[in-house]
């Protein structure tokens, strides 16, 4: 680590066993970072097992945070500070480090047993294998236990405080106040005063250790305040923003929301968040399976509430037949997909963007569904509102793509003013000469082709809906060949009409003409933006994936080369070839890890050299 009194940005990585409390330590550090005024981005990276075998490399849980005064949009390529609680955590993190990285290790964790488990023949702290780094070995385990001894906890309970001990040391390094962490402990451990006191003591002990020990290698780090747009800010994760966005959509539509879901990683945090938003007119229903979840959401929409469901790729696959029903019956529905590594169970806790085909093409029949993607944690709020707006306006299910990275990653978010958002409207039953309620229920708004939202309980509007093909004008069942053609056309036109209501595609960075344009979608916005900035490359980030913004084709035609960067095997490239007839260059990565800025910069430079 450069011994710089004031840094532009710094990347800190915390790594330990999945039972070491790394995620909690990381999120507390992020809160204190937010309150210090720095910009930041985080990346929680943890194994699929709840408590993977201790000491193993596959059981390592990590939390990376990039903070600084520069616009921070990624969790950082390479850590400047690594806190490793055991040999396995050190081993899996080493390939990411650069010469000079400050490594703080828990000396007590480097037992012969743990070294063997991590696959070390010799203790790397004892030989010169770490010589290009700055290593500080502290007896965190022992020092922590000493600091909590007076509270009479078991060795195991006392040992659990060591993440707060290490957090205290970090707080000292970064000159942070202990208040936010103590406040959190007060709230969380209200009913366990001994544990609360012990954790506070550990936190203070770690802080004091930094203050009093002669840690010549460690200097206090000062990071400047970010140049953020004025306003009130908070730290937010994608699942928090999505939950607030869904509740806000209900408020803007003046409808209750019924969110129906089945537990699946990494979607469940949204269910947990929404379960606490009851007072905002939100209900949650934990269904018996994915199909029941989407079914109940469709039933809720049929009953006049905003039906919403959420899952990850495998669960969305199960919901697919029901999505076709919602298209056919023309009911609004919000479907969130927190994508993860596939196929099949794949990499449940790792991020990927490989469900784009599934969202756009993955149904039986000609069954178009609008698809949007959230670009950042905070953007989940706006995208949820936008997706709901489309669902109600066009009376259609809408798929909102997020991913595992967004679900857990935190960033500073300028808190929006809800009164800045237009109300969300649906179509009322129009007065008409027809006395046939079936016809009234399927009377359409001319511009959006959305039908009236007629719900059981409304007087004199008894009608029937279903998955059988219906007559274009009367809404009654129809097996007429020409009518099926007309209804297929209608469903396509309805999707196309969405493009008339969405904004034109704007440049995210750079000129709207040139040699290369970098194109992305979803959670990769952060690294793509930085890579574009560093290489002076034009950059477009697509929120509306189906239909695409009307000007996108023209915009892309201003460039000789369209480089599409995504965390899959080239799905948006295919979609752009399909919809716009262009030949993009795919820049793909499917390692379960977000893009690094450096690898994007390298790929862009390679592409440039080819032109």
């Amino acid at each position, binding site marked *: 680590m450069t011994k710089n009194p004031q840094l532009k940005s710094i990347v800190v990585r915390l790594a330990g066993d999945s039972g070491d409390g790394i995620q909690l330590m990381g999120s507390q550090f992020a809160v204190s970072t937010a309150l210090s005024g720095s910009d930041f981005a985080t990346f929680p990276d943890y194994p699929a097992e709840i408590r993977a075998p201790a000491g193993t490399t596959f059981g390592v849980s990590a939390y990376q945070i990039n903070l600084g005064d520069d616009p921070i949009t990624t969790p950082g390529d390479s850590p400047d500070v690594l806190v490793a609680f055991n040999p396995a955590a050190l081993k899996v993190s080493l390939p990411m480090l650069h010469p000079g990285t400050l490594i703080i290790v828990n000396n007590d964790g480097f037992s012969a047993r743990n070294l063997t488990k991590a696959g070390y023949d010799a203790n790397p702290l004892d030989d010169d294998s770490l010589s290009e780094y700055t290593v500080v070995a502290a007896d965190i385990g022992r020092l922590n236990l000493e600091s909590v001894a007076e509270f009479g906890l078991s060795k195991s309970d006392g040992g659990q405080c060591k993440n707060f001990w290490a957090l205290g040391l970090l707080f000292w390094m970064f000159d942070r106040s202990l208040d936010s962490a103590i406040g959190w402990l007060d709230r969380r451990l209200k009913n366990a005063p001994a544990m609360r006191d012990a954790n506070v003591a550990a936190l203070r002990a770690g802080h004091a250790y930094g203050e009093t020990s002669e840690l010549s290698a460690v200097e206090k780090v000062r990071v400047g305040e970010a140049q953020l747009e004025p306003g*009130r800010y908070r730290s937010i994760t994608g699942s928090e923003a999505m939950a607030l966005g869904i509740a806000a959509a209900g408020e803007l539509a003046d409808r209750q929301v019924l969110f129906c879901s089945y537990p699946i990683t990494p979607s469940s945090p949204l269910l947990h968040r929404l379960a606490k938003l*009851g007072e*905002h007119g939100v209900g949650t229903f934990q269904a018996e399976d994915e199909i*029941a979840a989407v*079914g109940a959401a469709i039933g*809720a929409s049929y009953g006049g509430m905003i039906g919403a469901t959420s899952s990850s790729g495998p669960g969305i696959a199960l919901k697919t037949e029901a999505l076709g029903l919602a298209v056919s019956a023309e009911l609004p529905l919000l479907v969130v997909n927190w994508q993860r590594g596939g196929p099949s169970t794949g990499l449940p806790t790792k991020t990927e963007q490989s469900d784009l085909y599934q969202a756009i093409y993955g149904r039986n029949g000609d069954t178009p569904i609008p698809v949007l993607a959230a670009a950042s944690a905070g953007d989940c709020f706006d995208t949820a509102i936008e997706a709901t707006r489309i669902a109600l306006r066009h009376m259609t299910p809408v798929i909102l793509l997020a991913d595992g990275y967004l679900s857990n990653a935190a960033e500073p978010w300028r*808190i929006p*003013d809800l009164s800045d958002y237009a109300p969300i409207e649906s179509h009322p039953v129009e007065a008409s000469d027809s006395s046939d309620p079936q016809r009234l229920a399927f009377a359409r708004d001319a511009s959006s082709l959305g039908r009236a939202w007629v719900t059981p309980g409304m007087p004199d509007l008894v009608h029937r809906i*279903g998955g059988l093909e219906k007559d274009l004008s009367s809404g009654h069942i129809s097996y007429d060949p020409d009518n099926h053609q007309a209804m297929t056309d209608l469903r396509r036109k309805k999707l196309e009409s969405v493009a008339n209501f969405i904004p034109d595609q704007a440049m995210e960075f750079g000129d709207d003409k040139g040699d290369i344009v970098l194109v992305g979608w979803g959670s990769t916005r952060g690294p793509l933006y930085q890579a574009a900035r560093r290489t002076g490359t034009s950059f477009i980030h697509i929120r509306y994936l189906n239909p695409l913004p009307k000007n996108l084709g023209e915009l892309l035609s201003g460039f000789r080369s369209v480089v599409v960067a995504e965390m899959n095997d080239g799905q948006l490239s295919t979609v752009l070839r399909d919809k716009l007839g262009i030949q993009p260059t795919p820049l793909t990565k499917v390692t379960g890890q977000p893009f690094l800025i450096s690898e994007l910069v390298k790929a862009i430079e390679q592409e440039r050299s080819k032109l």
Partner: protein
Amino acid sequence: MSSQLTAKDFASSQEIRWCPGCGDYAILKSMTKALADVGARPDNTAFVSGIGCAARFPYYVNTYGFHTIHGRAPAIATGLKLANPELDVWVVTGDGDALSIGGNHLIHTLRRNVGLKILLFNNEVYGLTKGQYSPTSRLGTRTPSSPDGSFDVPISAGQLALGCGGRFFARAIDTDKTGLAHVLEQAHAFDGSALTEIYQNCIVYNKDVYASFTDRKTAHDTQLHLRHGEPMLFGKDSERGIAFDNERYVLKIVDASTASDPILIHDETNEVIARLLIALDKPVALGVIYRNPAVAYETAFHAHHPSNMQRRRSVADVIAGPNSWQVE
């Protein structure tokens, strides 16, 4: 709407497309009459179905209707009932729809006790797909997919219902107007999941599969019509009855006049006897076999909700979270 609606008011204008002679016609007729008799209102009633012959039912009833996808009607109806607990929500399903592809939803609907009136048209065969054996087909049923006779052990709707905590189970025969009307009215009045199994004759693929007990001439010997609080008697002159065999823990048929064991009095809340009645094959038990009310799911759902699903606070009140800061 006033209460003088008749069965005709509940018949829709749609052309009915069941096979001539199908048992579904009789059920439809009893249903529309029952709706009129219980004072239902078309505006406040919804029929939700899955896929199968029975699933066409919503098109033929003049109420709100939703013809959904195979097996999922209970899930969709659950969402509807949560969205509007005031609605009368009926689910129409068949043996394949409810007990095979949709088995999971039926199980969980019943255990939750969602206020849905579920009519299970059991004809022991897949009709709409042209006659394959179903999960209720008896062993040895010969169909195009079981040319040498089926060897799947059939499932019992009643045992399943009680096994997963269902609080209401009734049975009727499609053409038995009196018996069917009675259970439909009882199901309507039940606050919770009411599963009614209707023995329905598929005249094309499984004709007369229930003839052994539905034949009117012998019905008094083959059918046991249950009424809560009344003795379990059957036979032309109610000369026989059902008693409990204290040695073998089964039900036995006794002569009503000479029996030493007492004739059982039907107690709808007795789950143990209900299971024995469901298993009884001669006579076949009909009527409300088990009814043991508990809090309906939608009632619990709203009671546990902090604001009864109302919007008491704006998102603006909580959007800042516990920690926020000002950038000037």
